[in-house]
C-alpha cells in the first residue's frame, strides 16, 4: 500500500454520499450528482495509476479475520479499473437521467449510491468473502429501486430478480465454502495459483471427493444468472422493463458486467480446466444467448423489453468470446486468437455498458414526453417533431447495431476475430445474431421515427439544451472509442496478456 488508499476511498465515497443524500430530501439529486462526479474523477485517477505491465496494482491488503481466510485485499488491473470507470460513468448518467423522482428522492438516490458502492467494491475485491459481500450489497438496493419506484408489474419483477440472482449467489457461495474448507484460502490470486499447479484439484478431491466439476458449475451458475446466459435470463426482461429507466441503465450498463467480470476474475483463473472440459455445451449456450436473444427482441412490442433482450444478445458475444478462448494454448496462432477475443470481450463490456445505458436514457426521455408510453406501435414519425432526439438516439442505436466508426464495432470485430479460428461453427452461427439485431434496431427506427406523425405526437417536445449537453459527451465517447480504440486497448492489452499467461485450461 502506498500513500492514499484510493480504492477504499472510491468505495466509501458513494456510501458517504448516500448517507448525506438520505438526509437532504429534495436536494438529494444534487448530492448524488456531486458524489458521482467525484467518483468518476477518482475512477479516472485510478485508471491513470495502473501498472504498465498489466498486472494488478493499487493493492491494499490487511488482515481481517485470518482464521477464516478473510482478508481485506483490494487491487485492480486494467480490467477492474475499466469497470470502475464504466460504473462511475453509468451511475452518473443514471443520476442525471433521474430528474423526475418525486417520491422519496432522498431514499432513491441513497440507494443508487449504495449500488454504486457495491459495484466499486465488487470490481476491486480480491478476496472471496469481501467480494461476495459487495456482490450482494449491490443486489439489495437494486431490488428496492425496482420494488419501490418501478412500473405496474414491479412486484413480481423485483421478486423474480432478487430470488433468481440470490439462487445463483447461493450456488456461488456454496462452491466457495467448499473450496475454503479444502484449502483454507479465499484469496483469488492464491486460489488461481493453486489451480494452475494442480494443488487445488488435489486438495478438493482429498477433502470432498471428485467434486471439482460440481463446484465449477456452481460458480458458473452464479455468473450465468447475473450476465445472463440463456436459459437463466428470464428474470431480465421483466426486471429491465419494470425498473424505472434510470435504474435499468444501472442494471444493464453496470450490474450485468459484474457477471462477465466474475467469469474473468474468478471462474476462468480458478476453474479454467473444468470450463475447458465443458466448453462445448457452454459455447452452445452462448450461441443460443446471442441468437435467441436477438430473435426474442424481434418479437417484443415494448421498447424496454426490446432493448432488454438486445442486451442479452450483446452480452452473449462476451460469453462467446470467453468460452471460445477456453482451450489449451498451443502456439502463437491460438494465443493471438485468445488475446483478440479477450480484448474484444473487455471492450464489449465497456461499450455495451455505455451504449445500453444511453439507450435506456433515451427511453426515459421518451417516456417523460409521452406520459409513460413504451409500446413501439404507438409511436411514429417522431423525427419530424423531435429531430435532435431522433438524430442522437439514431447514433446510439447504430452504435448498438455495431456500425464501424462507433464504439460497438471494435469489440464485436475482435471477438469474431478471436472466436472464428477457435470455433468457426460458433462464430458462423453467431453472425445470425448480428443480422437479427440489425433488423430489430432498424425496425425500431422505422416504427418510432419514420412515417407520418400521429396527431397526438405532433408537438412531441425535442431534447432541450440541458439534455443535449448531457448526452453530447456520451455520444462523443462513442465516436472516440470507435475511431481511436487504442486509447483503451493500449491499456487493456497488457492485462489481457497477463491474464492469459496465468490461465490454464
Amino acid at each position, binding site marked *: 500500500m502506498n500513500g492514499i488508499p484510493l480504492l477504499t476511498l472510491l468505495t466509501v465515497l458513494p456510501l458517504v454520499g448516500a448517507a448525506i443524500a438520505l438526509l437532504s430530501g429534495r436536494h438529494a439529486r444534487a448530492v448524488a450528482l456531486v458524489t458521482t462526479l467525484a467518483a468518476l474523477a477518482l475512477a479516472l485517477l485510478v485508471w491513470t495509476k495502473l501498472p504498465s505491465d498489466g498486472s494488478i496494482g493499487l493493492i491494499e491488503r490487511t488482515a481481517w479475520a485470518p482464521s477464516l481466510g478473510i482478508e481485506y485485499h483490494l487491487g485492480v488491473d486494467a480490467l477492474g479499473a475499466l469497470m470502475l470507470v464504466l460504473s462511475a460513468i453509468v451511475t452518473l448518467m443514471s443520476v442525471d437521467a433521474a430528474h423526475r423522482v418525486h417520491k422519496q428522492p432522498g431514499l432513491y438516490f441513497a440507494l443508487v449510491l449504495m449500488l454504486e458502492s457495491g459495484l466499486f467494491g465488487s470490481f476491486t475485491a480480491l478476496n472471496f468473502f469481501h467480494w461476495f459481500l459487495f456482490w450482494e450489497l449491490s443486489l439489495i438496493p437494486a431490488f428496492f429501486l425496482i420494488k419501490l419506484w418501478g412500473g405496474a408489474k414491479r412486484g413480481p419483477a423485483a*421478486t423474480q430478480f432478487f430470488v433468481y440472482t440470490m439462487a445463483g449467489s447461493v450456488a456461488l457461495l456454496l462452491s466457495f465454502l467448499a473450496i475454503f474448507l479444502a484449502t483454507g484460502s479465499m484469496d483469488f490470486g492464491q486460489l488461481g495459483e493453486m489451480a494452475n499447479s494442480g494443488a487445488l484439484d488435489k486438495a478438493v478431491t482429498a477433502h*470432498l471427493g471428485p467434486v471439482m466439476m460440481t463446484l465449477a458449475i456452481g460458480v458458473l451458475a452464479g455468473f450465468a444468472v447475473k450476465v445472463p446466459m440463456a436459459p437463466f435470463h428470464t428474470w431480465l426482461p421483466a426486471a429491465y422493463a419494470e425498473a424505472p429507466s434510470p435504474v435499468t441503465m444501472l442494471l444493464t450498463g453496470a450490474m450485468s458486467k459484474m457477471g462477465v467480470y466474475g467469469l474473468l476474475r474468478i471462474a476462468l483463473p480458478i476453474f479454467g480446466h473444468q470450463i475447458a472440459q465443458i466448453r462445448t455445451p457452454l459455447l452452445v449456450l452462448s450461441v443460443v444467448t446471442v441468437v435467441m436473444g436477438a*430473435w426474442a427482441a424481434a418479437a417484443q412490442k415494448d421498447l424496454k423489453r426490446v432493448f432488454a433482450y438486445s442486451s442479452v444478445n450483446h452480452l452473449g458475444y462476451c460469453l462467446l468470446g470467453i468460452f471460445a478462448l477456453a482451450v489449451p494454448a498451443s502456439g502463437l496462432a491460438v494465443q493471438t486468437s485468445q488475446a483478440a477475443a479477450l480484448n474484444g470481450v473487455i471492450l464489449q463490456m465497456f461499450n455495451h455498458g455505455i451504449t445500453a445505458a444511453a439507450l435506456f436514457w433515451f427511453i426515459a426521455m421518451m417516456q417523460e414526453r409521452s406520459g409513460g408510453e413504451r409500446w413501439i406501435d404507438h409511436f411514429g414519425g417522431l423525427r419530424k417533431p423531435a429531430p435532435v432526439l431522433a438524430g442522437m438516439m439514431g447514433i446510439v442505436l447504430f452504435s448498438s447495431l455495431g456500425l464501424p466508426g462507433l464504439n460497438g464495432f471494435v469489440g464485436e470485430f475482435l471477438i469474431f476475430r478471436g472466436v472464428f479460428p477457435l470455433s468457426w461453427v460458433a462464430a458462423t452461427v453467431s*453472425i445470425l445474431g448480428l*443480422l437479427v439485431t440489425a433488423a430489430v434496431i432498424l425496425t425500431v427506427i422505422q416504427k418510432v421515427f419514420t412515417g407520418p406523425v400521429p396527431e397526438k405526437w405532433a408537438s412531441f417536445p425535442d431534447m432541450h439544451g440541458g439534455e443535449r449537453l448531457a448526452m453530447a459527451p456520451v455520444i462523443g465517447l462513442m465516436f472516440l472509442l470507435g475511431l481511436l480504440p487504442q486509447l483503451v486497448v493500449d491499456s487493456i492489452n497488457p492485462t489481457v496478456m497477463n491474464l492469459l499467461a496465468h490461465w490454464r485450461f
Partner: protein
Amino acid sequence: MFTPQIAESAASGILWLIPALPIVASGIIALLKQPMRKLSATLAIGSLSCSLLLSLFAFGHVLVGWASGAAVRETINFTWIRVGTAHVDLGWILDPLAAVMLVMVCFVGLLIFIYSTGYMAHDENFTRFFCFLSLFAGAMLGVVIANSLLLLFMSWELVGLTSYLLIGFWYQKPSPAAAAKKAFLTTRIGDVFFLLGMVWLFAQTGTLLFYNAGMGSMEALKLGGLLATPAGLGLSAATVIGLLIFAGAAGKSGQFPLHVWLPDAMEGPTPVSALIHAATMVAAGVYLIARVYPLMQAGVQLSASGEAVGSTVALTVVTWVGAGTAVFAALIAVAQNDIKRILAYSTVSQLGYMMAGLGMGGVAVGMFHLITHAFFKSLLFMGAGSVIHGCHEEQDIRRMGALKIDMPWTFITYAVGMLALCGFPLFFSGFWSKDGILEAAQHWSVAKTPFYLLVFGALLTAFYMTRQVSYVFFGNYRGHKEAHESPPVMLLPLVILAFFAMGLGLVGTPAWPWFRAFLEGHAAGFGFAGFNEPGLLAVMAASSVVVLLGLVVAWRIYGNKPIKAEDPDALEHAMPTIWTLLEGKFYIDELYGATVIAFYAWWAGVADWLDRRVWGGIVAGVAWLFREGAQLGRLFDVNWVDGGFDKGCEELATGGGLMSRIESGRVQIYLRLLALAVVLLTAILIWSSRG
C-alpha cells in the same frame, strides 16, 4: 513489365485528405441550422472540389510514373490497435486502380452535387441532404483508398449507412422508410459473410493490409499460405475466403439473389439514385473484387507470358453470378413502367456485366465497364430526374411521351446515354467496354454459356432502352400538366456527362488499349494491329448486329405510336403470361416474403414463446415450490400474516417507514429460507469433509 514504385511520395502522403475533407464538411453541415442552405451546399461542393483536385494530383502522379515506366503502388500503413503480440493495421494505397476510381467518384460526385442544388432546391431538408451526401462521398472515397480490408469494410459500412439515410430521406412517407431498411438489411446479409471472410483472412495471414512490402495479404507469400490451407470440400482457404468476400460484394452490387433492394432504393431522391445506386456505391462491390483480385485469382495457371490460363473456382462463381444477373435483370427491365425502376434493373444487369468481366477478363475489363457505366448511367438517372421534374413528379413512362419537343436538351443527352448503355457501335463508350467483356467471354476456357448469356443481355438492353425512350420522348404526350425543360444548373451536368459517355471509349479501344495498359502497368501501343486478334472483329460485328436488332425491333413495336396511357403494353398483348412474370420481377420479393421473412417472424415468435412458456414455466414451477414452502413457513412464523404473493410486496411498497418495510414481507421469508439452506448445506459439507 514496369518496375514497381512503392516509396511514399507527396501524392500518397496527402491521400487521406481526399475522404477526410467531405467527411469534415459533413460534420460541419450537421451542426448547421436548416435555413443555412447556401452555406451547406457551398461546403459540400467546395470540399468535394478540393478532393477532386487532390485526386487529379494523385492521378497525375501515377500517370507520370506510368509514363516513365514505373508501376506505382505506394502505401502508407500504420498500426491501429495491438491485441496480444499481433496488431491490427490500417493504411491507404495509391495505385492506378485507386487513382482512376478516385477521379471518377470525385468528378461524377461533384456533377451530381451541383445538379442536386437544382433538384432539391425546394426541399425543406436541403441542408440535411448535403450533410448525408458529403458523408457518403467521404465514405466512398475511403473505400477507394483503403489498403486494409478492415478500413475498406469500415468505410463500406459507412457507405451503407449513408445509402440507408438517403434512400429513406423522405422519411415521412412509409415506402422510402421501408425501402431504406430493406436496402440496409439485404446488403448486411452479404456483409456478415464479408465479415467472416475478413476475420478468417486475418486469422490465416495475420494481416488485413493488401500490400505491405511483400507481407500483405494480397501478395505472393501470404496467398501461397492460403492456397496451401485446406478448408473442406476440396477447396482452399483462399477460395472460400474469396467467396465470402464476394458475398459482401454481391450484396452491395445488387447481384442475384441479393438484388432485391436496389430497385426499391429508387424511393430515394433521384440525385441519390444517380450517385449512389448507379455510379458509385453499387460499383463498390465490383471495385472490391478488383481490389482483392490476387486472392480471387490465387492458384490460377499462368502461361509463359504471364497470362492467366483457365480460371479459379472463385472467379468461376463470380462469372456465373454476374452473367446470370445480367440477363435476369435485363429481362425484368423489359416489363417495367417506372422510369427509374427500368434504370435500376438496368444497373443490376450492367453490374452483372462488370462482375462477369472481372471473372473472365480480369481487372481492367471489369473496371473499364465500371468507369464508362458510371458516366452514362448517372447521365441517364439525372436525365430521368430532369424528366420527372419536368413532368411534375410523374415517374410512370406511360404518362409521358413526346418530351423531345418540350425538353430538347434532356432528350439529346438522354439519347446519348441510352446509346452508350445499349453499346451502340463505335461512337459510344459503352460499346467498347461491353465489347471487352464479350471478347473475354468468347475466349473463356471454362464454358461458352456466359458469352451467349451476355450477348442475349445486350439484345435485351437495346430493346428495353429503346422501349423506354420511345415511351418517354416520342409518340404523344399523355401527362396531366404541361412538361417544361429543367433549369441550366441541372442541364449543364447532363451535357458534361454526355460528352464523357461518348468520348471515354477512346481510352479503351483495341487500337489504343490505354486503360488496360495503365491498370496493368505496361506500355500502351497505338496501332490498328490490335484489331487483328483472333475473333475480335467477329465479336464486334456480332455485338453490333445484336444491338441494332434490339433497337430496330423495339422501335418497330413502340416507336412513335400514338397510344393511351391506359393501353396494355404491346408485348403484354402478345404474350400475357411471360409479361406477367417479368412485370412481377419473377416474384422474388414474394418468394422471400414467404420464406426468409416469414421464418424470421415465426422464429421470433418461437424465441418469445420459449422464454415465456418453457423457461418461464420452469421458473413458475420453482416459484410454486417456494410458495408452498412459504405456506409451510407460515406455521412457524407469526409475522407472516397474509399468504398472498403480491399482497406482501404491496405492503412493502406502501407500508410505513423504511425499517418497518424491511421487517415484514416476503423478502424476509426468502432470505430466511436461503439462509436455512446455506446453513444446512454448509453443515453437510463440513460433515462430509470429515469423512
